[in-house]
């Protein structure tokens, strides 16, 4: 028996990385899954975008757990597309209980040198896209009358700042503000709203040349190996780890989604190897 038997979850950014892991772990606990992903590279990013093959692989991995999944290739910036995906998924599975607003991107530049295009894309995907996820899903959660759990993917950057990604930090702080307002607005409906706030996660979003350059500007590009970089990433953390794995974030998501967290709302949950207390 799973912790989430009979429940249905909607996940954005589901094709790979954290979103895929959340889908698999929620399914293992018994939830059916509705998912979307852009399955393409947004213009601003300089790491590979998710692909349709990635999305298909998520479907295969969820189905392997024995649960059902419906996915749509859609952009979180497109409210109509999110609403259509959610409405179709709820029609298929009959209910909605859990929302994981996970889709996000990351780029690097000093604040005053960011281009308008990059600022807008990061704010629109990481912040406005999350709100559109909430707008598309909350009516279903309320209509179900069974409460629910909304989990917004923030970041350690939703709590503290570092140089060279002001747009990302602004977007993730914004997510935290949205979470707190929603927690107040939805408490009477027994819909809980929280954020997960991971430090660096071992995904293509940080395992790429531009992030390595940020951490090792003194090294030649060919010397920016994982061995050379790991101690620098580790120095951010109280624990001796360079980054966390996607499963570590999924553990927090599963807990927040389950009745084990029935009285937990309005919190930011760091998964950070002790970065904040350092």
């Amino acid at each position, binding site marked *: 028996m799973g912790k989430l038997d009979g429940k249905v979850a909607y996940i954005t950014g589901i094709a790979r990385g954290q979103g895929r892991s959340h889908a698999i772990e929620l399914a293992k606990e018994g939830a059916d899954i509705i998912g979307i992903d852009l399955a393409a590279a947004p213009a601003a990013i300089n790491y590979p975008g998710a692909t349709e093959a990635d999305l298909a692989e998520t479907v295969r991995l969820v189905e392997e757990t024995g649960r059902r999944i419906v996915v749509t290739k859609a952009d979180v910036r497109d409210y109509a597309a999110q609403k259509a995906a959610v409405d179709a998924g709820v029609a298929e599975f009959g209910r909605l209980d859990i929302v994981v607003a996970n889709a996000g991107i990351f780029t690097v530049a000093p604040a005053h040198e960011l281009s308008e295009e990059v600022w807008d894309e990061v704010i629109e995907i990481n912040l406005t896209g999350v709100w559109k996820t909430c707008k598309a899903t909350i009516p279903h959660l309320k209509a179900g009358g069974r409460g629910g759990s909304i989990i917004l993917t923030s970041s350690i950057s939703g709590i503290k700042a570092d140089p060279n990604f002001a747009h990302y930090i602004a977007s993730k702080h*914004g997510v935290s503000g949205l979470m707190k*307002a929603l927690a107040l607005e939805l408490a009477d409906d027994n819909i809980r709203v929280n954020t997960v706030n991971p430090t660096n996660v071992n995904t293509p979003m940080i395992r790429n040349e531009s992030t390595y350059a940020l951490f090792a500007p003194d090294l030649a590009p060919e010397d920016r190996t994982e061995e050379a970089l790991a101690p620098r990433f580790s120095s951010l953390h109280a624990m001796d780890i360079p980054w966390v794995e996607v499963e570590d974030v999924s553990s927090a998501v599963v807990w927040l989604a389950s009745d084990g967290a029935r009285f937990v709302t309005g919190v930011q949950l760091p998964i950070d190897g002790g970065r904040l207390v350092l």
Partner: protein
Amino acid sequence: MDKLLEGKVAYVTGAARGQGRAHAVRLAGLGANLVLLDVVDFIPTIHYPSATSADLDETVRLVEAQGVRALKHVGDVRDQAAQDAAVADAMKEFGRLDIVVANAGIVTLARAWEVTDEQWDEVIGINLTGVWRTIRASVPAILAGGNGGSIILTSSTNGHEGGQNLGHYAASKHGVEGLMKTLANELAGDNIRVNCVAPTNVGTDMMLNPATYRVFRPDLVAPTLEEAKPAFGSYHLLDVAYVDVEDVSNAVEYLATDKSRYVTGTVMSIDCGLSVKYPAG
């Protein structure tokens, strides 16, 4: 008033009235020359009157009455070219820029899932992206001077707290605090300090209007200010319904002058104890 800002130049957005006007007049009183920006066009989603051209002219008059110069710019903070032009004008006329007060902001009231696309985009576009555009326009000018500087971003108690009917506003103001913390990191090496002021309710047109009274007193059909005041004050430790613009200007004055020379990366709450009564999670 000691002329602590004699010879300095400050850029204030949202300067036509309310907090922006009070900050501009205060900085002028301290001896700074000003460049003032405000939009005097109707902003479609807000439920209170937009600032007018006459408002902005009155701010110019009040600034000049302090014996300094004011450059008036009509423009929207969402328009990068308008902000770039305001800063370029300051550099042309005054040759430097030292202080930035990114104050322009709006609020609308709706449940987060009932906010319209237009409301969301206007609040994020003005309150968050507009502040970044102010930074983008002004930081190169401050850096070019090599004199350091002080950047003050107007946040809110909703920059670190939730609040019903304010999802878009809280998202925008939390975003401003994130931007502030990053900039404090990025600009400390150039002795440019970056801080937020975070007021609770301020007695301006944004707050003092019937739609806001109804949100605070949903039990009444047409509540008056007097009937709304106890609800306004219920969030505070101090027995105060709302602060005055001058209370926020006092914090801006401190952050703009060398009295705060070692203060950067902070959020200065002017909140009657709200954040102690309701600590942010």
